[in-house]
């Protein structure tokens, strides 16, 4: 969860929970392997598809025109603010100068990509980015699931909503605020340092030590973003049919078995969906967090692709094309990862980010 946008739209989430809950209830009784049971429905659907007679476009238009009108504003907005600007990515293949009109720039092919991959700082930035992305995936993502499960098991609604707000609120803080709060508390002249020095100890060095930056970044992600993931999972948890728990309890399933056989399988589609989206943005680990702390821990520990683009291709350099090439590369990797993850999700019988028809 990078906080840089691309957040999935929550309303799409609770939907699929119901039918799958039915699947799982079957499973609980018959103890059939989950994989096979889930694999069947898409296959049958696929087999049915060609049989359905396609109506002519004219008919479909007459039937669906209202829907098209409803989506038109969104399409126009996307076109103006997303597709049109994206078209300018073509400058990655040009010897671009801002003082010429676009079509006057000579096309030079993949030179900028070549320069990019030969740049040792780009490679460093790429490796750092992957390091942070996997750390987020491994240590923050599961954390929000655990948080949601803990939250879900708290019975007192008052305690629950209080705790929920406390954990969720930091998500709305900007990175500027998060970083300065951390410096105020954990910095060399911060709250903890003063307290430690008062007790005769040493000052904390964590906000300026490049070796522990990963740990610091992890604390910041967790504090800022774990609550947001928790809310999504809580929504999925709320959609589970309580009758399932009751039935399981009657059958003698203890707390852990219920967690394992009911709760986790029920929120699996949401987990997979978030995982895919997370994978797609794997090279976008964010910008502000690293840029703000770059001076404190040095660029070696904090340079990621986005800061690379800013410092090496925007500031003090004619790097419009090079920066765009870096951005395109990032987008391409993201697209490939999304497609791959989505494909795997379909193989496991999940919906993924779109329905396979």
């Amino acid at each position, binding site marked *: 969860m990078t906080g840089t946008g691309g957040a999935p739209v929550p309303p799409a989430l609770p939907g699929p929970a119901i039918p799958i809950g039915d699947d799982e209830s079957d499973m609980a009784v018959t103890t059939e392997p989950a994989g096979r049971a889930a694999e069947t429905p898409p296959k049958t659907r696929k087999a049915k598809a060609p049989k359905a007679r396609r109506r002519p476009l004219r008919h479909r238009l007459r039937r669906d025109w209202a829907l098209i009108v409803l989506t038109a504003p969104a399409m126009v907005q996307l076109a103006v603010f997303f597709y049109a600007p994206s078209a300018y990515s073509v400058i990655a293949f040009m010897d671009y100068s801002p003082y010429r009109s676009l079509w006057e720039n000579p096309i030079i092919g993949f030179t900028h990509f070549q320069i990019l991959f030969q740049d040792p700082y780009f490679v460093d930035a790429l490796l750092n980015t992957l390091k942070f992305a996997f750390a987020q995936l491994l240590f923050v993502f599961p954390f929000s699931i655990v948080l949601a499960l803990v939250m879900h098991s708290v019975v007192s609604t008052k305690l629950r909503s209080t705790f929920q707000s406390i954990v969720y609120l930091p998500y709305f803080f900007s990175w500027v605020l998060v970083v300065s709060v951390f410096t105020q508390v954990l910095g*060399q002249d911060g709250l903890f340092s003063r307290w430690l*020095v008062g007790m005769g100890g040493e000052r904390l060095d964590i906000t300026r030590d490049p070796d522990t930056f990963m740990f610091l970044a992890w604390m910041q992600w967790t504090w800022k973003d774990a609550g947001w993931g928790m809310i999504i999972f809580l929504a999925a948890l709320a959609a589970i049919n309580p009758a399932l728990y009751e039935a399981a309890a009657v059958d003698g399933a203890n707390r852990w078995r219920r967690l394992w056989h009911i709760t986790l399988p029920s929120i699996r589609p949401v987990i997979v969906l978030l995982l895919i989206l997370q994978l797609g943005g794997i090279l976008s680990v964010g910008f502000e967090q690293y840029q703000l702390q770059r001076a404190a821990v040095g660029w070696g520990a904090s340079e990621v692709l986005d800061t690379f683009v800013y410092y090496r291709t925007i500031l*003090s350099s004619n790097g419009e094309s090079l920066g765009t090439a870096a951005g395109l590369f990032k987008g391409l990797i993201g697209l490939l990862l999304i497609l791959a993850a989505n494909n795997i999700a379909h193989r496991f019988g999940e919906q993924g980010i779109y329905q396979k028809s």
Partner: protein
Amino acid sequence: MATPSGGSPVRRRSLFKAAGVGTAGAAGVPLASACGEVSGGEGNVQEVDPTLGILPEYKEWPLPIEPDLLGDPPDHPSGYLAYPNPPARAITTPPGNSGSYQVYVPNWGPALTADDPYLLAMQEATGGTKIEFVQSDGEAFAEASTQWIQAEEFGDAIFMFGWMTNSHANFNETVVNRFADITDIVSGDIAERWPLLAGRGDAAWADSVWSADPEDPAGTAGIYGVPWTLLGGPGNAFFHRADLLAEGGFAVPTTVEELLETARAWSDDSAGRWAIGGSDYMSKAWFRLEATGWLWDGSGLVHNNERSEFKEWVRFQRTLTDEKLRHPSVGSADFDGKTLHRTGEILFDQDGWSRWWQMTQEVRATGENPAFALGPVGALTYEGREPMYHAARGVGGWLFFRKDLGEDAIAELLDVSNYAAAPYGTKEYETTFFGFEGQQFTYDADGRPAFTEAGVKGFQDSLAYTAMSGATEYLLEGPADIVEARFAFDEAIQPYLDENPFQGLRLTGPEAGNNAGAVFDEKVNDIVYGRAELSELDAAVETWRADGGDEAREFYEKAYKQLHGE
């Protein structure tokens, strides 16, 4: 419309050829073979020539009130001991204008709202021109301006400090492509309409000239901006808290060794006291490092980075880290030298000259610390070498106009610039810098303008009308004792001011050199702040040379030789 960046246009591929490459690439030719050449990044030289015919005719604008202390401007500015009260009127008949404009300015003070009474009063005072100042934090402004200017989204005019141009890839090229050429408007005799702008002098106006084609500098020269203050004398200062030094029984250090001694004695990490605040740009001169980076050794140019003095400087800076003599937040965005210096958590800190009189005046006004006293540290020496002090040269910045802003509109804005060019001691200067009596300031016991609550909150330190032009003459300001002390300091420092080896040239180095320099500086910061070891410096210097340092040397050497006829 497009201007070549000083490189030979022959290297650029024509669109026809390039299209061929494009289709070949699409047809599945392997990646490596589908490569063309990338142009640009060779660097750019511009000459600052005060004898150019296009400059506005200089017509002296004598100070209406004689200063008490007469210096030798611009290296040794004059100053008033008592505030000239009442100040003189510089403009007797204000113009009658009605236009409305937007000007982008950097700002470190409070932001003004569009209907601030000060702005409304200034609109009337300057002749009716309504200006909306779009103010952004200065550091962010420097970086963001690169994008605004390329996208031509900076209102009708933008103010840029000279140092901000470092954020741009090739500012010389940017200027001629993005800003209006105002030669036709300001060339010749302009004393009739803009007497104060005519009084700015050739040196200031020559520094606002750029040439569209560097191959033909004189033929394509044009005036592209209104020059801000013409700088001279010591550029910045390393200030000490005189009261705290005296309290601890320390003398003002005169050598780097003494500074370290004092710092060691005064600093106490566990008590939260660190003698040194910011020192990076001031301390280089103590080790005789060059302000421009390049030193002519008789046969060629040597860069600071490669000199043994640089290693000494890095070692000194590292000592500050290792022995905990420097405030731990220095080097990060959280460092607030002004506040720390005011509260006495740090003893020394670097800043522009205004810190001296402004902070002193503020502390005196609040009465928070009657003993408070600041003072500049002189040219420190290391190992008994010759003292050196970096001077400020040229104009400090420019006001640039949008390329397609009409001639009448530019002339109207120049009316405002003319107003802002009035020097210290005039009513116009007073309104520009202090506001209006009874609203933003009142006269204190000494007859000097002192900000009121409203002035401090809404106006003090803000860059607005101050950005429209530099004054005809820069004069020292502040309370009498500080003006006196500054005047004496300037006099004493004159023999140690450094010379700019490229005086008269405006240089944009080759891009490879700039990039290698940026990478090198980051490595040095790693060493200084304890993230890397001093032993890694030599390897970093080698990398810098190979990655662009030598290319930059070649470029600067060529410019140096041409300039000095070597």
